């Protein structure tokens, strides 16, 4: 459904995208995962024909983004990162407006938005600008779906949204996927990566890796330990100073320690730390998360 080959984009001297290539199949949820400024929005704008790449090719649903832009625009739904509906129109007016622009009606594709729109109905006559963050997000998704697009581009739909609403949003995406819609979604939240079929990790305009979330985490190159103790702040500093430790980062209630030296086991690490005056330290092997992988790949500068 989406094919990208060697796309480059510069803004002046800044290389926003460097040699990106990937394919997304029909009905796939493909996640573009990376921090602010990595190039996610630039990529989405190129694929939705709002911006021209400097070089490279891209096709959406078989149409070239340069020569077939009109066809693409009729076939994609785009939800930009910034709320872009008409603030002074009501919920219903916004929906009607987008339906009309695409030459359809709200009722024609109502089945696609029913689940989401049901939660908005009570606010039908409220102006879009007066909705809460979660409601704005739902309305924007309805407007992006109203013309029954083949491909949906969602640029950071869950940024700044609380965990409950984020979860609900992903449930909605799963239902849309089940109806055959292809979804490209970007997010800075690494924990959302596991909800995608495949993900591309992006940093500084380059893909670090494209894979399924499962493959990504099993290919983490070294053993990873989770370490907890009563004095987390000093523990962090002292762990970093130990030999055989590749990296050590605070991960919420524990530190994730990547060990290069196979001899460094949970037992031997506890022993070492005890000798340094850290009593009651817990250490165990853990499976890497997508976030661990991102940090590992970003630090080694791996290219896909």
């Amino acid at each position, binding site marked *: 459904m989406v094919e990208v080959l060697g796309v480059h984009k510069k803004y002046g001297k800044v290389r926003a995208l460097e040699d990106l290539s990937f394919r997304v199949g029909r009905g796939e949820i493909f996640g573009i995962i990376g921090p602010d400024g990595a190039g996610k929005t630039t990529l989405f704008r190129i694929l939705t024909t709002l911006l021209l790449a400097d070089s490279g090719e891209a096709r959406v649903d078989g149409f070239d983004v340069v020569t077939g832009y009109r066809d693409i625009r009729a076939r994609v739904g785009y939800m930009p990162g910034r709320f872009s509906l008409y603030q002074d129109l009501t919920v219903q007016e916004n929906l009607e407006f987008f339906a009309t622009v695409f030459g359809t009606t709200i009722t024609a594709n109502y089945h696609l938005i029913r689940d989401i729109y049901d939660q908005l109905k009570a606010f039908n006559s409220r102006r879009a600008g007066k909705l809460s963050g979660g409601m704005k997000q739902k309305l924007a998704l309805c407007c992006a779906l109203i013309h029954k697009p083949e491909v949906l581009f969602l640029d950071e739909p869950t940024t700044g949204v609380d965990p409950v609403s984020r979860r609900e949003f992903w449930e909605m995406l799963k239902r849309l996927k089940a109806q055959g819609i292809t979804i490209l979604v970007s997010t800075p939240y690494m924990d959302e990566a596991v909800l995608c079929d495949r993900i591309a990790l992006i940093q500084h305009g380059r893909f670090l890796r494209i894979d399924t979330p499962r493959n990504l985490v099993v290919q983490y190159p070294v053993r990873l330990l989770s370490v907890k103790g009563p004095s987390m702040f000093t523990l962090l500093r002292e762990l970093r100073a130990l030999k055989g430790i590749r990296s050590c980062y605070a991960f*919420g209630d524990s530190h994730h320690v990547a060990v290069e030296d196979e001899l460094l086991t949970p037992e031997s690490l506890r022993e070492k730390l005890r000798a340094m005056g850290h009593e009651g330290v817990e250490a165990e092997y853990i499976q890497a998360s997508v976030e661990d992988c991102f940090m590992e790949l970003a630090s080694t500068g791996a290219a896909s």
Partner: protein
Amino acid sequence: MSVITAENLTKRFGHFVAVDSVSFQVGPGEIFGFLGANGAGKTTAMRMLCGLSKPSGGKGTVAGFDIERKPEKVKASIGYMSQKFALYEDLTVRENIRLYAGIYGVPGKLIGPRTDALLRRLGFQKEKDTFVKALPLGWKQKLAFSVAIFHDPKVVFLDEPTGGVDPAARRQFWELIYEAAHGGITVFVTTHYMDEAEYCDRVSIMVDGKIEALDSPQNLKARFGSESMDQVFRQLARKAMREVD
């Protein structure tokens, strides 16, 4: 001696009770996570504690000052940083530090040496004359936090400080928070990253204007039989009835 106290703190807008009689205390050097769904009342509560909005009921003190009667004293005793606004993009790193130091009343002769020390600690010496808009987001946020505690406040309020930052920068940011807390500054932080809630000594979870839970992450997980703060949060926040930001 608590650095922040809230006693039945309430804020009404017309008939709408944004913050509904919340009570808690935060000690010196504590990292206190203030969580809640969008619209739960976090920002309103935080604005009252910063001396920016008068309570409709109840009382509160920050750094020993009454938030209703001495809001100016409160403002001078705290630091504040949010994701949305922190630094002036068209000023350089050094100019931003100078500006905030002046606003917070740091004595002139201390500003120079403290600025040097700060730049050294952050490894920003080369960037001191760089415009803030040219810095990567992760650097900006580290600088913003350092500027917010430049005047050595008793408390620093952080309103979703790490949105959109890459994972390594997010961790470096939390290490700065740890360090500040280690040095005795009380840290009051809101976040939507539930893994960040685990860095906090204690967290409160607000639902529809009320505090539904307040404890250490460990105790909350045990009480709700959850493996992560994300699960705890979802169990509580699902109860939310209201839909207003």
